[in-house]
C-alpha cells in the first residue's frame, strides 16, 4: 500500500451531496475540497464520520493582494484516514474584518493548539474554541505577526524591555 492514497471518489461524492456547494480539485494525486464557511462544521462532521480520524494540521495562508483571491484568509485542514491511508485537504476561507471560522476542537482534539497557533499568528478567530489564547508569541503581544501587512521587523515590540545596567545587578 502506498504511504498516501488519493481519497476514493465515493467519499467526495457523499461530501458534495451532504454539503453543497463544494469545489473539488485534484493536483498530483492530492485531493482538495473548498467548503463554504457556513457549512464547514457540517462538512467536518461528515468527514469525521466517513473515517477521517486524524487531523494532521490546521494552518492558514494570507492572500492579501494576491491576484485572483476573493477572500483574504485561506484556512488549510489536512485530514487522514488512518485505516485506508486516504489523505484530504480541506480549505475554508474567511475575510476581514474579524475573520471567523468554526472551531473543530469538538471533532478532533488535536485542533486545540493548532487553532491557537493560527489565532496567534494570523488573528483568525475560531468560534467555539474552549481556550483561544496566544500559543507562541508572548501574551503582551498585540499584533498577529504572520499577516502580510505586519512589518517583518515588527513595530518595536522587540525593543520594549527595561535596560539593566551594572547599577541594577
Amino acid at each position: 500500500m502506498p504511504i498516501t492514497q488519493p481519497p476514493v471518489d465515493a467519499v467526495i461524492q457523499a461530501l458534495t451531496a451532504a454539503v453543497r456547494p463544494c469545489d473539488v480539485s485534484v493536483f498530483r494525486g492530492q485531493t482538495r475540497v473548498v467548503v463554504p464557511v457556513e457549512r464547514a462544521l457540517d462538512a467536518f462532521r461528515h468527514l469525521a464520520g466517513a473515517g477521517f480520524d486524524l487531523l494532521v494540521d490546521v494552518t492558514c495562508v494570507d492572500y492579501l493582494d494576491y491576484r485572483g483571491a476573493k477572500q483574504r484568509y485561506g484556512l488549510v485542514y489536512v485530514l487522514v484516514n488512518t485505516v485506508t491511508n486516504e489523505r484530504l485537504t480541506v480549505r475554508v476561507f474567511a475575510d476581514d474584518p474579524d475573520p471567523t471560522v468554526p472551531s473543530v476542537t469538538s471533532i478532533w482534539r488535536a485542533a486545540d493548539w493548532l487553532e491557537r497557533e493560527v489565532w496567534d499568528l494570523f488573528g483568525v478567530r475560531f468560534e467555539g474554541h474552549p481556550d483561544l489564547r496566544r500559543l507562541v508569541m508572548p501574551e503582551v503581544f498585540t499584533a498577529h505577526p504572520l499577516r502580510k501587512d505586519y512589518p517583518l521587523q515588527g513595530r518595536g515590540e522587540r525593543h520594549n524591555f527595561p535596560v539593566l545596567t551594572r547599577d541594577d545587578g
Partner: protein
Amino acid sequence: MFVSKLDELANWCRKNSLWPMPFATACCGIELMATGASKHDLARFGAEVFRFSPRQCDLMIVAGRVVMKMLPVLQRIWLQMHEPKWVISMGACASTGGVFDTYAVVQGIDRFIPVDMYVPGCPPRPEQLIQAIIDLQDKIQREGTITGREFDTAERQRKKRALVEATLPLTIDAARNPVLQRELAAAADAAART
C-alpha cells in the same frame, strides 16, 4: 600597597576559576559544549565548571539568538548571579541579532544587559571563545578589586535591593498554584487514609 596586593591575589584567583553559566539557545551552544569537551578542554583555563544555577556562576556565556520571550528570563538570570560577574556575548546573534532581523528576535543582548566581551562568528570556533575567555581573564587581572569596587556604588546597592524585591516573588501563593494545590490535596488524602 597591602590592599593592592590583596586585589591582585583576588583577581588571580577569580580569573583562574571562572564558573560559566551556559545560556545556550542555538547552534553557538554546540560550539560552547565543544569548547568545554575534551578536545578543546576549557579546563586548561580554569573555566570548565559549567553550572546550571546562576547562584553558582560568575560568567554568563550567552550563546545564540535571544527572542522576546527569552529576554526576561535572561535578565532575571543575570540579576540572580552573584558579584563579581561578567558576560560574554557569543556569536553574531547574541551580539547583534545576526541574520534574524525579525519582529521577535532581540537585536543584541547588550541593549538590555551589560556585556564585557563580544565573540564574532556564526558560530565562533572554540578557539575564538577560548580567546575571549583569555581576554576576559586579562581584563579581570587589570581592573578587578577584592571588594568589587569596579562595579559598586551606594546607589547601585539601593537600586539592586529595590529591583530584586520588585521583580522576584519571594513567597509562593499556594492558592494560585494548581500544581502545589494538587500535591497538597494528595498529601491530605494520603494522611486521611492512614
